[in-house]
C-alpha cells in the first residue's frame, strides 16, 4: 500500500549506496524523470541500474551516469544516437555493462516478482549472449537458463494513482512499469494525477496497490523542457 508523498526528493529518500535500481521507461515514454532527477540529488552511489536503455542526451539516466553514481548497467539497448554519456563511461571502463535481450530482461524482472527461481528461455541460444549460461534441450528445442533480476528499488512512471497506490498507465508508456513494480523491495511511482480511492475502475487497474510503496505527483513539465525531448 502506497504512502502519498509531497515531493520527489521525499519519494527517493533512503535509497542506499550500492542499491540495484530498476528504472521504467522505453525511449522517453514512461521514464520517471522527476524520480531520476531526485535520485541524482539524493546522492546514492555504486548503483546497479536496470533499465531498457542507458540514458539519452544529458538528462535523466545520462545525468545519473555522468555524476558517477552507476557501477553497472543491465539493459537491452545501451547504444543510441544520443547515448554519449554511457558510451564515454563504458569506453573508459568506468561502468560495467550486462547486455540482456529485451524479452529476457522483462521476463527476468517478472520472475523476480513472481517468485520463479529461474526459467528456460529460447532467446539467445547459439549467440554470444549465451556464453556461461546453462543450456538444456526440452522437447527437442534448446533453451538457456535465466535468473531473476530483483531490485532494491524500482522507479516507475504511471498515469494515475488512487490513494492506495493502484496504478493505471497510458498507451506505450506502460512498458516496463508493471513488471518492475512487482520486482523491487521498495517501489516508487511518479504519476500525472492522484485520484481518490474508488475513482479507478477495478477492471482497469494494471498495477494493484499491493506492489506500490510511495507515490508522488509529477511536476508539471513544459513540452521539450526536460532536456532530452
Amino acid at each position: 500500500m502506497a504512502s502519498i508523498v509531497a515531493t520527489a526528493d521525499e519519494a527517493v529518500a533512503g535509497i542506499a549506496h550500492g542499491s540495484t535500481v530498476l528504472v521504467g521507461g522505453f525511449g522517453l515514454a514512461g521514464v520517471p524523470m522527476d524520480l531520476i532527477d531526485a535520485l541524482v540529488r539524493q546522492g546514492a552511489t555504486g548503483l546497479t541500474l536496470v533499465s531498457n536503455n542507458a540514458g539519452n542526451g544529458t538528462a535523466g539516466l545520462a545525468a545519473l551516469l555522468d555524476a558517477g553514481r552507476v557501477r553497472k548497467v543491465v539493459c537491452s539497448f545501451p547504444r543510441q544516437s544520443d547515448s554519449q554519456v554511457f558510451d564515454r563511461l563504458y569506453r573508459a571502463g568506468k561502468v560495467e555493462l550486462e547486455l540482456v535481450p529485451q524479452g529476457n530482461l522483462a521476463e527476468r524482472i517478472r520472475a523476480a516478482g513472481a517468485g520463479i527461481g529461474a526459467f528456460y528461455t529460447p532467446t539467445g541460444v547459439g549467440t554470444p549472449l549465451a556464453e556461461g549460461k546453462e543450456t538444456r534441450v526440452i522437447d527437442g528445442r534448446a533453451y538457456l537458463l535465466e535468473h531473476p533480476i530483483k531490485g532494491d528499488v524500482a522507479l516507475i512512471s504511471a498515469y494515475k494513482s488512487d490513494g492506495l497506490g493502484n496504478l493505471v498507465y497510458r498507451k506505450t508508456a506502460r512498458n516496463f512499469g508493471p513488471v518492475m513494480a512487482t520486482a523491487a523491495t521498495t517501489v516508487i511511482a511518479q504519476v500525472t494525477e492522484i485520484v481518490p480511492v474508488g475513482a479507478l475502475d477495478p477492471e482497469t487497474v494494471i498495477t494493484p496497490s499491493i506492489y506500490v510503496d510511495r507515490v508522488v505527483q509529477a511536476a508539471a513539465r513544459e513540452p521539450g523542457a526536460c532536456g532530452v525531448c
Partner: protein
Amino acid sequence: MTAAAACDAETVEHARRGPLSTDELAARIALDIPPRSYVNLGIGQPTRIADYLDPAAGIILHTENGMLGMGPAAHGDEIDDDLINAGKVPVTELPGAAYFHHADSFAMIRGGHLDVCVLGAFQVSARGDLANWHTGRPGDIPAVGGAMDLATGAGQVLVMMSLFTRSGEPKLVPDCTYPLTGVACVSRVFTHHAVFTMTDNGVLVNETFGITLGELRERLDIPLVSGLT
C-alpha cells in the same frame, strides 16, 4: 504472388531493370505478408513496409514496446509522447488496438504468436542464421534490444537488407562472421538485388532485380538453387 507459389517456381529474372529501390523493396516484401496476419516490423528500413500494406488486408502491426494495432507515424497534433514505436518514433493508434506491458509483449513474441517479423541484418547465412545486433569490432558497443526475441519467436522471420556492403562484400554468406542474433531462424531474405528463400535443399533464388542468376552465383559464396522442381 504468395510465398508458396514463389518457392515452387523457377527463378524469375528481372535483369533488364536496375536493382529495387528501398521503397520498391518495401513494397515487394509487403506482397508476401498474408492478410489478417500479426506482424512486427523492425526498426529502421522495415518500418517502411507499413506504407505498402493493403489496408483492406487487415494486417495488424505489433510493436514490442507494448501495442497491437499500431497505426502510421504521428504528425503535428497527433504526436503523443506516450505513444511511440520500438524505434522511438511517435505513432498512432488504430481501432481495435490493445496495450500491454513489456513482459506480456515479449511473452507474445517468444510464445510464437506473431505470424511474421521483418528485421534488418548485417549478415544472413545460407542456413538462415541471422547477425544483426553487433559488429563484433573492438570498441563498438553492442545493443540487442528485441532482436533476439523476435528472431527466435516469430512464426516467420523475414530479412530486409542490402545484398552487398558498401565495399561490395556479400551479406548473404556461408557462415556469419558477425556475432549471431539467432540460429537457423530466417526463412526469407529480401534484398534490392534478389529475393531468397531458405529451404532444406539450399538457398532458393525467387527473383532477381538488375542482375542475373548467373551473375549472382559469381558474386555469392554459397550454392544457389533455382526452383525446387
